Each structure stands twice: as C-alpha cells, then as structure tokens.
C-alpha cells in the first residue's frame, strides 16, 4: 500500500518536531517544533481518511489547524512578554524557578 509512505513521512516529521522541542534552546524554534508535530498529525489524519474513505480525518485536520492558531496566539503572547522583560527568548535563560 503506497499510501503508507505518507504515514512514514508523518511519523518522521512528528519525530523531527518532537526532537526540536526537546533539544533546541530558542523558544520560537521550540514552538515551531510543536507546530511541526501538529502538522505531521494533520498529514497522518488526512492519509488515514483516504485509507478509510471517510471524511472525518480531513475535518479533524481543520480543527487541529484552528487549535494550532489559538495556541500561537497565546504562546507568542507569553514569549513576547518574556522577551520584552529579559531581551532573550532562550529557554535556558528562564531559570528563576529552579531550586
């Protein structure tokens, strides 16, 4: 089934996104990693929808996009607020709460 190639691609993109979140230090890049994970999920949903001949997966993809947009709004607001205070968007600089 050649459709499965899309699934492998989705899994690879998801893994790249997860790695980005876990390894990168810049908040914006980390955030892009999360977006990549969500979009990889969309690809998986659309592929599964094709395999099942069912529209649900495509509808879900739209919902995920909307949720991702809402997340961007809140997330960038928080990151900008921190950046304006500290002039840095590095995850490592945000360490006051470490005991």
């Amino acid at each position: 089934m050649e459709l499965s190639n899309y699934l492998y691609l989705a899994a690879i993109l998801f893994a790249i996104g997860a790695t980005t979140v876990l390894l990168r230090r810049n908040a914006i890049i980390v955030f892009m990693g999360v977006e990549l994970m969500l979009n990889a999920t969309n690809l998986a949903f659309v592929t599964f929808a094709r395999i099942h001949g069912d529209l649900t997966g495509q509808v879900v993809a739209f919902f995920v996009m909307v949720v991702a947009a809402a997340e961007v709004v809140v997330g960038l607001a928080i990151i900008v607020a921190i950046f304006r205070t500290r002039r840095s968007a590095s995850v490592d600089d945000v360490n006051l709460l470490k005991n």
Partner: protein
Amino acid sequence: MTPDTAFVAPVIEWAYLVPVLVVLGAGVIGVLVEAFVPDRARRPVQIVLGLGALLGGLAAVVVLWGDERVQGLPNEVPGVRILGGSMVVDPFALAVQGIVLLLAVLGLLVVADRTSTGQDAFAPTAAAVPGTPYEDLARRRGVQQTEVYPLVLFAVGGMMIFPATGNLLVMFVALEVLSLPLYVLSAMARRRRLLSQEASFKYFLLGAFASALFIFGVALLYGYAGSVDLARIFEALVSGTSPFGPPGAMVLTGLFLVLAGLLFKIGAVPFHAWTPDVYQGAPTPITGFMAACTKAAAFGALLRVLYVVGSGLPQEQLDHVLVGLWVVAIATMVVGTVVGVVQTDIKRLLAYSSIAHAGFLLVGVIGFNALSIRATVFYLLAYGLATIGAFAVVTLVRERAPRREPVAVAVGTAGAADAGSTAGAGSTAGVEGAPESDVVLGEATHLVEWAGLGKRSPWLAGAFSLFLLSMAGIPLTAGFIGKFTAFQAAIGGGGWMWVLVVIGVLTSAVAVFFYVRIIVLMFFTPGGRPEATGDEPDGGLAPGVTVVRSQGFTTVALVLCVVGVVALGVFPSPVLDLALEAVKFRP
C-alpha cells in the same frame, strides 16, 4: 441536489447541555462586560456573574442527575449521547462536572478576594513590562485586571466538556479550551512577575508538546478504527475489522500517546516537570483552582478513554497498558513523596504533594473495576477540597517590607487604611527588591516564615493543619476515606495489585512526615527573633511576615473546605453512595 445528499439538520438535545452552556455563556458575557461596563462596576459584576454561572451550572447538574434517561430507563444503557457521542451525559460525566463546578466555586471565591490590603493577586496590567514606568502608573491608578473571571469560566467550561465527551476530537478541543486560559492566568501574578511569566512559559511549552502527543495518538487510533468516536473505536477493537488487522502496536502506541497527553495534565511522573514550577510561579488562587479542577477533569477523561478503549483490547494488550500505568503510578508516588520531603517552599511542597496524590489516584484507576470509578470520584473531591483550602491559606500569609513611614505600623490590623493610597505597590519589579513604600508584599512561601503561625492565627493554622492531615490520609478526614477507597479498589483488581497498594501505603507514611513537619513548625516553633532585626515581629511570627485578613470570600471558601473535609471524613457514606452511582458509565 439529489435527495440523499440533501442537508439534514442534526438533532441536538440542548437540555442536557445546560451546565456547559451556562458556564461558557457566562464566560462570553464576561468578555462583553469587559468591553461595556464602566471601570468601577466591573469587578462586582464579574464576581456575581462568575459565581452565579458556576452555581447555576451546579444546580443544572443536580437536576440532570435525577433525569431518568441519564440514570437509565429499564432495559437501556444509562446516559444520553448527544450528536453521536460528541457529548455523553451519563452519571459519571455529571459526577465529575459537579466536582469541577463545586471546586471552581471555591476556587473563584479565593480568586475574588482582595484581602485587607485591597489588592487581588493579579497584575494591574499583565501586558506591562515589569519594572517600567507604565506598570508603575497602572499600579498607582489602581487599575485591575477583571479578565481573570471570564478566563476562569472558559477554563471551567473546558474542564466540564473534557470528561463528558465520547469523541477524541472534542476531547482535544476541550483540552485546549481548558489549557489556554490557564496558561494566560499563570502569567498574571501581581508580585514576582518574572517567576509568574516564567511559570506560564514553561506550562505553555510543555502543555503544547503534550497536546501534540495527544493528537498524534488520536490520529493513530483513528487510523486503526476509522473513527474518533470512542464507542466506534471500541467496536473496531472488539471486531478486529480494520484495514490494519487485529489490534497491535499501532493501537497501543496511539493509546499510550493519548494517555501521555492526559497524564501530563494530571501531573504524573515522567510528565510532572512543569508542576512544581507552575504551582510556585502562578498566582496562588489560580494555583489552587488549577491544581484541584484540572486534576478532576483530566482524571475523568483518563478514566473514560482507558476504560472504553482498554476494555475493547485483547487481554494481552490490556496488560501492556496496565504495566505502563503501573510504572507511572509507582514513579509518581515515589517521586512526589521523596522529592517533596526536601522542599523548603510551601507552594512547591504542595505541588509535590499533588504529584503524589496523582499517584494514589492512579493506583485506584489501575484496579480497572467499577469500584475504581467510585474511588476516583470520591478521592478527587477530597483532594480538591484540601488543596483549594491549603492554597487559600497560603494567599493570606504574607511578607512585609521594612517600615519606613510611621503610618505603616501594624499591618495586620490597619492594612485596609492605606489600601487606597498605596494600592498595588507590590514588589512587581522582580523576584527580589521590594519597594519600601509598601508594607504587605507577596506570599511568604518559605517554610521558615511559617514558624509561629499557630500562635499568631490559630484558626488559620488549624485549618491548614486539617488540610495537611487530610492530604496525609489521617482517619476522620476526607483524605483517609479517599485513600482507603482507592486502595480498596486497587486490591479488587486482584493479581499483583497488592504490591502497588503496599508501595502506596509506604509512600503515604513517608508523606506524613513532611505534612507533620509543617504542623510542628506552625505550632511548636517560635518564629519571632526580635534580636535578628530591629523589626517588631507580628504576634509570634518570624520577622518580616504577617497575616492579612480576608475580605470574606476566602473565609467562606476556607470554612466550606474545612466543613467538607471533616464531613467527608466522618460521614462519607452518602457521598460514597452517590459516587457509586457514577459507575453507570457509557462509552
């Protein structure tokens, strides 16, 4: 257009959605209030609206509880499925919704309290950069951020949908609806704003990561079953009619990812890293609210996913899932307890205590029988009451800066007098460096600062001790019954479950140590050391610490929490019977 493609309007049974609609509707009205109601009137309007909506939702839940279709007509499965399972109103969903609403009412009371200092716990303008003239101006003008109330209502709305949906897509949306307001609320502390922003930042990044894991898990389950509806996934698992054959690695991976997303919200190890930081950095009333309500909602969703999907899995696969949860539960109990012992910050300590409680709750869940549902519902209520109460006490124990003006004497008694002139002049500039113009500062969170509280405010210290004893699981408190039923449910699971219960009991015993340590500190350790500074200690407290009076809201919440904790501990059977009804469960 041919007849068979013609649009058919879906039938929605609005009556069963009333609790959710009331709360979310009030949230929307709250946003309008921000836009149209004059500045001075906003706070009272928002408080009335918020409390009214939550109590109204609670009343609606109680009414629906008696509905015959919810409780199950003869020969029918109890519960009503709305829009093909997008919302499932069954006794279990209503029980969790009721708990969330009850705890949210208490949480909102604490949020609304401005104490005798005349300041609530939230920054005048959360968007202002800490330490700038603009922020200073907003503070001196006495600007207040009343958006807090609609945000809380939206979060509660999400928490009510979360355990009451049989559809994984709706669950994902509910997850975001409850999370996004909490990320914002975490960043809005009036004092120690850098910590607060940092907490919000960590919560957001890890939360977004967890929701991405969750939705990828949903994608895999959808890929297997061809539906995001839990009931259809169950059918597909049982029948094995999937293009991908009998349930295997794909389903397991999907389920594990979904559970990971939920366990993150619960704060179970290894997804707990955010918990101490966020609990410490967020405004204390919000910490109490989210610690109690989020956990209730997330456990509701966890039970629904696990019990529906899990009971469709073949025994061998189910064992894999349960083994995974075993590891998580043991790690959660051990880490929560052991790391909790060495904490010196009261909010962090309560955070680790909440992690440990997540572990005990998981022990009950893993029992995987009807009693588990009863135990979880009861435990969530007992834990929530004690947690909101404990954080409410934390909001009242404050630091104070060295006096400079003669006016600022005796803060605890005359604090209200200077509220108007110096309103909001807290140490918003950062972690350290409290401006000397003000007397009462942020919460005194270091444990040392709690010494002597029993002498200064015996009632407050007594209530706090009661909450701690309940968390420790001492008999005659709600926590004891909660732990007992959870462990009982686990034993009912049979097999090797006793190992888990033994670990649970041992970690509880260790946890007693750090709860009792605080009680000893409050009642038997003298706090006042007049020779240390020239500062006059406040009634036996450590220098630089004081207790502010509540405006009344927090007192009401505290009294209700105390009554609840004692009542559930002494007469648990009515509530346990109600919780047993919640076992009626529909995918």
